[in-house]
């Protein structure tokens, strides 16, 4: 009697989970835990906090996984509008910390509205395209573009380039999956490629003092320029890149061994438990550890995209596809930054970096994917 009751409770709680996705996520989190232990060795209280963060994030995932996509759809517009309103609030009355206006003080708590937009924006766009599924006009893409660019612009203005890029990427993937014409995609890609090429080729000239880049803040220009030539600022911004590159390179193929990274434990890697945690991993577990990580990410993305492919609703398809590609964007921007091929923008390594907010957001994404997977048959066609 009792056994069946317990079984029922367990089923209703964990039955919503997608076993392959869950297995991949748990493997990733376990691997991350090993690295976090090493990265927080000098600050043991952070490890306890990490466990707390994990509990909260996985709890959020379980809750979200039980919410059917139809319910999520009804939340899309309100979530987006609230998020937008809060972003405006930040711009008008936000708290300034480290030179950026990112936080809104609600009196009882401080929130960072840009974080919720990482989910709210793709949710909103997926809902929008779902609504206009039957007849999709060019005008709809224009509206979608506006829906996307409004919060992105507000976030970039804080300034929080990292989050702005992630929100932008999330939206762009929804629009891409919704079927934006290649005729529009190609020129943009080409222009971007040319821009990056020019920067690398003419870097010395463009990075000279006094050359202002239109629409780019001085510190952002500095980050890009430091990437092109870290030695210009070995003790300042370049220190991050130089030291993380040394950590990665000195790791070799098999790494120096767990807890044995000298760059890590002698504090040469800045932000080693957050944005630069990949340097810790690469130093201690080498190329082998990095390959393992990338394979886990690819598996996660592949499973997510598979869920998208099998989803029955346009909303679910777009949302699942976008969330999977957010994971990719997160991972790529962070790995590129730490290994020195992208500028330093504050993007944590998904599921690995210490930090509660990002972990919760990422796990809510997992919950959404699972919900889409479980409720695919229930969707009305």
């Amino acid at each position, binding site marked *: 009697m009792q056994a069946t009751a317990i079984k029922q409770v367990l089923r209703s709680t964990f039955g919503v989970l997608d076993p392959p996705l869950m297995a991949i996520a748990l493997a990733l989190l376990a691997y991350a835990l090993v690295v976090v232990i090493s990265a927080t060795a000098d600050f043991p209280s952070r490890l306890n906090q990490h466990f707390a963060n994990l509990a909260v994030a996985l709890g959020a995932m379980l809750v979200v996984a039980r919410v059917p996509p139809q319910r999520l759809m009804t939340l899309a517009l309100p979530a987006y509008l609230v998020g937008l309103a809060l972003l405006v609030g930040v711009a008008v009355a936000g708290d300034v910390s480290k030179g950026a206006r990112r936080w809104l003080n609600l009196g009882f708590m401080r929130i960072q509205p840009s974080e919720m937009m990482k989910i709210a924006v793709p949710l909103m766009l997926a809902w929008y395209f779902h609504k206009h*599924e*039957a*007849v*999709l*006009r*060019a005008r709809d893409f224009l509206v979608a573009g506006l829906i996307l660019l409004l919060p992105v612009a507000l976030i970039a203005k804080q300034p929080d380039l990292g989050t702005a890029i992630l929100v932008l990427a999330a939206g762009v*993937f929804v629009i*891409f*999956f919704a*079927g934006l014409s290649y005729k529009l995609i190609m020129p943009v890609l080409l222009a971007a490629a040319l821009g990056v090429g020019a920067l690398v080729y003419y870097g010395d000239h463009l990075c000279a003092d006094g050359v202002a880049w239109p629409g780019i803040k001085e510190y952002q220009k500095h980050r890009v320029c430091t990437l092109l030539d870290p030695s210009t600022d070995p003790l300042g911004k370049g220190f991050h890149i130089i*030291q993380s*590159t*040394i*950590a*990665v*390179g*000195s*790791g*070799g*193929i098999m790494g120096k061994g767990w807890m044995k990274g*000298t*760059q890590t434990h*002698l*504090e*040469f890697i800045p932000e080693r438990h957050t944005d630069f945690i990949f340097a810790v991993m*690469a130093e201690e577990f*080498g*190329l082998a550890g*990095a*390959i393992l990580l*990338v394979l886990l*990410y*690819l598996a996660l*993305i*592949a499973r997510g*995209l598979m869920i*998208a*492919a099998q989803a029955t609703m346009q909303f679910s*398809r777009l949302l699942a*596809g976008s969330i*999977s*590609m957010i994971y*990719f964007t997160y*991972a*790529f921007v962070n*790995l*590129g930054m730490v*290994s*020195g*091929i992208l500028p330093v923008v504050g993007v944590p390594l998904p599921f690995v970096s210490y930090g509660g907010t990002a972990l919760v957001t990422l796990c809510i994404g997992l919950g959404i994917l699972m919900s889409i997977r479980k409720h695919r048959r229930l969707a009305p066609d």
Partner: protein
Amino acid sequence: MSAAEFRAPEQEIQRFRARLVLAVALAVLMFGAVMVRLVWLQVLQHDYYRTRAEDNRISLAPIVPNRGLILDRNGLVLARNFSAYTLEITPSKVADLESTIDDLSGLIEIQPRDRKRFRKLLDESKNFESLPIRTRLSDEEVARFVAQRFRFPGVEVKARLFRQYPYGELASHLLGYIGRINDRDLDNIEEKGLEDKYQGSIYFGKAGLEQRYEFDLHGQTGFEEVEVSAGGRAVRVLSRTPPVPGNNLHLTVDLKLQQVAEQAFGNRRGAVVAIEPSTGGVLALVSKPTFDPNLFVDGIDPQHWDAYNNSPDHPLVNRALNAAYPPGSTFKPFMALGALTIGKRTPAQSISDPGFFEFGGHTFRDDKKGGHGSVDMYRSIVASCDTYYYRLASDMGIDAIASFMGQFGLGARTGVDIDGESIGILPSPEWKRKRFRRPEQQKWYAGETISIGIGQGYNAYTPIQLASAVATLANDGVRFRPHLVSYLENVTTGERRPIEPQPIARLALKQDNIDVIKHAMVGVNKEGTAMRAFLGAEYVSAGKTGTAQLFSLKGADYKEGHVKERLRDHALFIAFAPADKPKIALAVLVENGGFGAQAAAPIARQVFDYWLLGKLPQGAAAEDNDASDSN
């Protein structure tokens, strides 16, 4: 509906799935780029980055050795080391020095004096060394700074060994001092090939024994291979080569005696050199006024520097070694010994002194009007009769005088173990030829020999030369090199390296002749010019007073009250005691002290009383104003 295209769900899903495949391709491609980069860093460039990581991690820290102590003959420590915290700035790492120092002064008291000294050090140093802005921080100040250190890149607190001279101004001229290494010192180190010994050292002996025995006192720098964190904090020691501490310097000098001699001067200027005749060991080496060597250790502040440099008393000049004075009548016992040695006089041979001596139409006066009457050798010394020596000088001739005096080391460096000794002047025709340019100046005139006989004229000797000469006389003609260091002690093994008292010369003198002179010098202290200074002494001493004329008062009466203090004659006194078995020989010079008996002999009395009887004097030696017959 016209502009909108109708979309078939099946076709739409196929297109969506195609785009998913594209997305996967994008992910694989981009991750591939990252992997290529990682292979480049971790496989192809691995050796380079591994070296960089090791360089990051390991730092070679020099360990500065303990500088040897300087101790007096009884083991009193004259120079020692103590560890203290300093606040140091590395100028090359600081963007705006002034504002950094301003900010620091909010945490730690920084006087205008400290700033000036820092400026001075900055001018003299290279940018990459760290320079002290404040020394001897209290624990509280260290704690206050450490809590705020993140605000001050390029500023750090360092624990350093400091040199300290616990007795301050006492014996400062013989000890000298250390200061920060400068370019000249570095050249010196390089020339000797000792760069390795000096890695990380910042001090170098600049004067006195600290300078002369620099390479014995310094020791050898050790090394520690330390694992350091990014913040420069040492995490653990990987290997260690211990430093070799410097040797301790044990002196022949007796600090108490030195103190007695210095105090005997009061505020007067001058010098005392006291030597143990049987070894040449220097018992006291005084030059007044003195200075505080502690001020020099970390760069003297401009205020003190100016005060020392601009003082008319020249406290930084070591008068015992670097100032030459006419010996005055202290020259006479040596003249008399010379006359006996070359057979120009016998002890009993008398002259009649009318109070003057005429030579070449020039009258040389005795300071006693009407003369001393009939004067033999004994009387000539006891009463200090000038006429006797005018005639003797004329009889001996300048060449014989110069060659005899040269044997006692007059007019030559004694070789004492402090650098920068002056030569002085032993006058001779040869000296004049070298000294002057124009032919008429180069010629030696016979009249010039006359005043040489009473220690005036071109005669000029340093107090240590006089002390060494009288010690040689006291030691019956066996001459030692004066030295201040008795032995060097290896701190680790306890092994001692003595400075052997080897005689450098045995003068060809007859003991009978020496005894005649000694006897006369005993007479000086018993019944002669220094009688009053040695009244009631419980030992038999021998001495000779002298007065070095600064002012040529040709034919005129010398009334000291009429001459300004700075123009008064220098008072001199040479002596040894006990007369039969001398334990101490000395030369005393009091600048502008007037007659030797008046100013210099009482100082010698206090020194002897302490050395022979252990009697400590009360205050400075009183000037004997009644001593009048005392040239």
